[in-house]
């Protein structure tokens, strides 16, 4: 890709013959105007941010298809079809430069581009989908004849297990090594036999998404190498400042540095837990006080939250030590648990300063036996959730609204409604991070009683 200042664009002879969705397999050999470099990237970033928002709000796949369709039309449309494809490709490669530069950026970009690809793929018709599968050059065979017959009964069982009462076994199935479709395997959405998964035509999306994700992941590593070794220096007066500015514009606050509203000390912690903690953290905190122990998932979720809330390392060690030593003794705490806490604060091992978990991560966690982490709106039974909400002081009317959101799987909206009910105010931004809940809550409480600790 050559960035130039001239007005006209030389025709690109590298645009692949009419794929509806480009696969970004190789960098385009075309010229790009400097202004387009930045503008195209910003437009695409709006799309990716919109995808991120939609996922955070727990939208189901069909809703996400709509979201993507709208976002794409609003931001990436062009009257000239080939210009539209060019913008698609250019903007993707520019953002690769922007988002290859750290692990966190890479992870975000990879997730959003993959989600974008997934939903754009779903919006295509079957023929276009098959064409895209072909583009990847994957050697999958369609299952036919005797083999298909022998599998029919179990294929029907799979379809029925997914909620379709009359098993309409599809006409075409692809025999694919199970490694290529991890999300279908994970959800038990395919029949697996002797290492092969039998993927229905309608499940093709999973196949290609895995390929896409794997390719982009590798590409990001290569791009990073190129960036750090040559591009950054070479372009320091031209593209580098643009690239560096682009990434900071759009990532939400990560709460790893405590702000003025987040600075608590040990003596206040019990009071603050009742007044400002979101339900998930309140539950963990109460269980910790009750059992004098938390399993790993709980320690991570609560520990990082407390870090974001402003608890310093020394205070954190004292806090956990005081609780754990009641159950396992202070010696064992020092031996087995202190390291983990210091690790969270970036004082051990590879010294990463871990960021507190956002709602999306917490909602998608999988608490098991003996765990108390996760999102109560998702992971609690209705009875337990009602009891917990009652303890937070929700009225029965407020509770019904919240339970309604829960039933529709809008866990973050449920938490937002809880916030609004508890503090008697509206929260338009919507809760998507426990530390955000805490800070907003502290803001409100401090504005009411500026002097007293809340």
């Amino acid at each position, binding site marked *: 890709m050559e960035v130039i200042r001239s007005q006209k664009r030389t025709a690109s002879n590298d645009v692949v013959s009419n794929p509806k969705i480009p696969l970004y397999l190789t960098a385009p050999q075309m010229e790009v105007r400097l202004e387009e470099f930045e503008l195209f990237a910003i437009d695409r970033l709006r799309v990716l941010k919109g995808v991120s928002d939609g996922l955070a709000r727990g939208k189901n796949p069909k809703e996400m298809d709509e979201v993507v369709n709208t976002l794409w039309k609003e931001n990436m449309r062009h009257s000239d079809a080939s210009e539209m494809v060019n913008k698609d490709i250019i903007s993707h490669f520019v953002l690769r430069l922007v988002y290859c530069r750290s692990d966190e950026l890479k992870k975000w970009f990879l997730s959003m581009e993959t989600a974008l690809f997934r939903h754009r793929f779903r919006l295509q018709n079957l023929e276009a989908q098959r064409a895209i599968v072909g583009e990847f050059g994957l050697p999958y065979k369609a299952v036919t004849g005797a083999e298909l017959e022998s599998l029919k009964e*179990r294929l029907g*069982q*799979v379809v*029925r*297990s*997914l*909620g*379709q*009462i009359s098993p309409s076994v599809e006409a075409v199935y692809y025999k694919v090594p*199970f*490694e290529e479709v*991890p*999300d279908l*395997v*994970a*959800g*038990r959405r395919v*029949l*697996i*036999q*002797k*290492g*092969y998964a039998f993927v229905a035509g309608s499940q093709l999306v999973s196949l290609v998404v895995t390929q896409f994700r794997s390719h982009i992941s590798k590409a990001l590593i290569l791009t*990073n*190498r190129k960036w*750090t070794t040559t591009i950054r220096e070479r372009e320091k007066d031209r593209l580098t400042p643009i690239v560096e500015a682009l990434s900071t514009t759009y990532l939400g606050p990560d709460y790893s540095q405590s702000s003025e509203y987040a600075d608590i000390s040990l003596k206040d912690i019990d009071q603050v837990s009742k007044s400002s903690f979101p339900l998930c953290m309140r539950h963990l905190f109460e269980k910790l006080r009750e059992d004098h122990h938390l399993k*790993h998932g709980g320690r991570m979720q609560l520990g990082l939250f407390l870090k974001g809330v402003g608890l310093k390392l020394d205070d954190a060690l004292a806090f956990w030590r005081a609780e754990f030593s009641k159950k396992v003794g202070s010696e064992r705490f020092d*031996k*087995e648990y202190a390291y983990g806490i210091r690790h969270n604060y970036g004082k051990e091992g590879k010294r990463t300063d871990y960021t507190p978990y956002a709602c999306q991560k917490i909602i998608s966690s*999988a*608490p*098991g*036996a*003996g*765990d*108390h982490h996760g999102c*109560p709106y998702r*992971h*609690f*039974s209705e*009875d*337990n959730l009602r009891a917990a909400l009652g303890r937070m002081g929700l009225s029965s009317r407020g509770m019904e609204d919240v339970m309604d959101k829960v039933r529709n799987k809008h866990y973050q909206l449920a938490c937002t409604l809880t916030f609004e009910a508890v503090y008697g105010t509206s929260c338009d931004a919507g809760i998507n991070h426990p530390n955000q809940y805490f800070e907003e809550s502290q803001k409100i409480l401090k504005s009411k009683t500026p002097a007293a600790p809340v």
Partner: protein
Amino acid sequence: MTREEGESRGDDTMIDAPQQITNPKPEEFFNVHYLRIYYGNLFPYTDIHKWLSYGHDGKHPGCDEYYFGRREFSFTLENDVYLRYKSFKTASALEDSIKSCFPYKIDIGAVYSVDPDKRHAYSQTGTNVFTPVERELVFDIDITDYDDVRYCCSGADVCSKCWPLMTVAIKVIHTSLIEDFGFKHILWVFSGRRGVHCWVCDPKARRMTNEQRSAVAEYFRVYKGNENNARKVALMGYSLHPFLARSYVDFLKGFFEGELQANQSIFSSKDKYDKILEMISDQDIQSELREKWENSARSSSLSEEAISLTRWEQLKNTLQSKKHKAPTLRMCVEEIVFTFTYPRIDLEVSKHMNHLLKAPFCVHPKTGRVCVPIDPNNCDEFDPLAVPTLSQLIEEINSGGSKMDVDDDDDTDTSLLGKSIKFFRSSFLEPLLKSCKEEIESSYKTKIGKSKDSFSW
């Protein structure tokens, strides 16, 4: 073989006893003295080395002689000192190191891109990044994760009434690994106290990414929950997935209605049956059954087991007739069976390539038992309370009953550990090495073939 005998043996001159065991604690069956003897004489260094070399013994031009040296080991020493990123170029280097510090625990990690103990020599952003490249697909099943469904023990204890949960877990997972995933080289190992580990060693398995491992772990996951929700197994849809259906029909149903009922009598008291009734999402059905059972409790003279079975039949019949009332009742019977019997694996252990797992043939510090392999095709016969302990093994050495090196050709060797080592070799190691060597040879031939072609004009 009791501790007392072990201690009196310390007075014999057969084994060096540099320290007298002066303050015998109730659990004095594991100590550095015993470990020295074990690691000095019994631990199968050569077998472990052969296994983890996967055929790269340097005898074939296609071998990677540095392969073993890139494997991470970790040692846990006596004072909870934990040493990670240890690596060894040869079997004797491994042996010397173990014999110099007699670790309480030895863990096996992944094979990395470079020697773990030289990892700092490579920068993190260059082309030689320190990263895992191969690792067995592993599973860890621990009986404490079943505490909510076993009444005989809890926590670290295990007995003949609850161990069968592990047996059925092995059967379900093992069958699936072979039939569904097509794996062939699978090693099951006793964890030494209350669980089992599984090592899947096929080349395909070792090269799996974290995402693929996660997928397999999720495929196996059914039980989702903790004390915060009542219905922890939710089987949606109109039928079971073929994997779950096969597990149910071949293993779980029979186990639940037979051995489990006999051992745990899960319906015999109000506390017990209330827990099961809460899994039924229909309040009316719950009340109907509760009433029936409260009334019958007073008048029955049957055994606990018989009462339990009768109530199970009643529950099944009631649910069968009422299952159309709601989607959540459709497979309620199966859900109950799964809750009590289906394997509960530790997902985190399986998901990451860099997760360390205890080495086979280690000794468990709390029980003194050796982590011996379990034969998945005969796992009904495995008894965790009959596994050789350190003190038993040492007693055996003292009485001249075991040979120092287990000899394959000698059928008269019936030493306690010898049987396990023989099983390890014949059932697992030999077929594995044969297949590894074939693979090394064929990929070498392909490489040679390719380079030959590149010279053809």
